[in-house]
């Protein structure tokens, strides 16, 4: 579903990604771990076609980047720590706007379904700027899956959320992944990542240094594995 070979990204002369190789099967939930500045966000921005790779091969759902970026975007949902929503529009107007951009046929039932999934049906006519951070993040997930993408990318979705909001987000993330979507998520919240992920990759100094399936953790917790992986 996602295939990355020899991905290099430089800003000026400074390399951020130094030859990343990555593969995700359909239905896999890959959690990308790594210290600040390791290149996780840059990697996700390249996967989402917001940034061009300097060199390397990136293929998503059978389409190559950057040549077939429109086709990739049709199959992709992205949630970042920013909501990507308009504060002066209601939740429903936001989703309706994105349904027009994605040209979704008969959008009303899908919008209703998404509101139910993210638990915001009762607030759909409220302005987004009146929403709490947690509600905005749930609506951002609704926006990302509105067109039923095969691949969903989450960049630090827990940033700024309290415990209750994080628990609610866990449930929504599970629902998103439960229908067979391929998910790639970056996170510093190792406890939550351990619950959700099926595979854990450690990106450090611009390359994926370690990778482990959840079944291979064998009694160790993710924090122990992560510390060993980054040499901490």
């Amino acid at each position, binding site marked *: 579903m996602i295939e990355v070979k020899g991905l290099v990204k430089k800003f000026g002369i400074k390399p951020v990604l130094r030859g990343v190789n990555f593969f995700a099967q359909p239905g896999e939930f890959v959690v990308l771990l790594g210290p600040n500045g390791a290149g996780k966000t840059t990697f996700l921005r390249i996967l989402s*076609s917001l940034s061009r790779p300097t060199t390397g091969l990136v293929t998503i759902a059978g389409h190559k980047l950057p040549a077939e970026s*429109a086709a990739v*975007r049709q199959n992709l949902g*992205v949630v970042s720590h920013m909501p990507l*929503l308009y504060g002066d529009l209601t939740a429903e107007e936001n989703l309706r706007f994105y349904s027009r*951009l994605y040209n979704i*046929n008969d959008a009303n039932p899908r919008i209703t379904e998404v509101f139910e999934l993210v638990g915001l049906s009762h607030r759909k006519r409220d*302005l987004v700027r009146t929403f709490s951070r947690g509600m905005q993040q749930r609506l951002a997930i609704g926006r990302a899956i509105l067109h039923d993408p095969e691949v969903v990318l989450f960049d630090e979705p827990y940033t700024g959320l309290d415990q209750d909001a994080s628990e609610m987000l866990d449930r929504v993330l599970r629902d998103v992944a439960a229908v067979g979507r391929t998910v790639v998520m970056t996170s510093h919240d190792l406890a939550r990542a351990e619950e959700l992920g099926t595979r854990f990759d450690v990106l450090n100094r611009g390359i994926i240094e370690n990778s482990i399936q959840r079944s291979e953790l064998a009694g160790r917790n993710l924090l122990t594995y992560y510390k060993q992986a980054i040499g901490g």
Partner: protein
Amino acid sequence: MRTNQVTAYKPSFIKSIFAITRKDISAEMRSRELLSSMLVFSMLVVLIYYFALELDIKAREAITAGALWVTFSFAGTLGLNRSMAVEKDRGCLDGLLLAPVDRSAIYFGKMISNLVFMFIVEAIVIPLYAIMYNVNLLVPGFLWITVLGSIGYVAVGTLLSAMTVQTRTRDVLLPILLFPLVIPVLIAAVKASSGFIQGLPMEEILPWMNLLIVYDVVFTAGSYMVFDNIVEE
């Protein structure tokens, strides 16, 4: 497995443009931040001219076009900055760039909404100016020049605001980059508008009108071609 009940077709270019314009106008009708700042600024400038310059009827006719275009161009930068800042503040520009639409549809969507806001401001300021200065501005030729000049100004302004919004100094940078580029539009619009207000023969006005039309076509086409590269990292 995924039920895949959602049918999403390849988005139409025209539909995407109007979705963006409609979204901008809906959001602005609710917040009125952009229009109110442009309008208040324009009215203040017109009022300052009124008190600062004591002019007879001939002098008034001579300076009207210049005074109005200075007002529109400064008010326009406020609108252009605000229009793109709304997209940047909550990451919405990324939301637009992630949609499977041709990215030039984003440019045209933003350009049309900026043009609508510019026309609304002009539709209020021009009659106000005409009443205060007792100058007849209900001249069809003058109104056409206003439309042509606004298109050229907004075509370049939308492109540059998409560039400058990525910078920390966007409020200062936009006018610094924009005004040198729109000098041909401003000169041509002032000359042609003055010609219509003062009732000059068409032969004297036509070259300026032609310059405006050529500028509009060239800069709209150029912006269409480079917008994709400008918004991509």
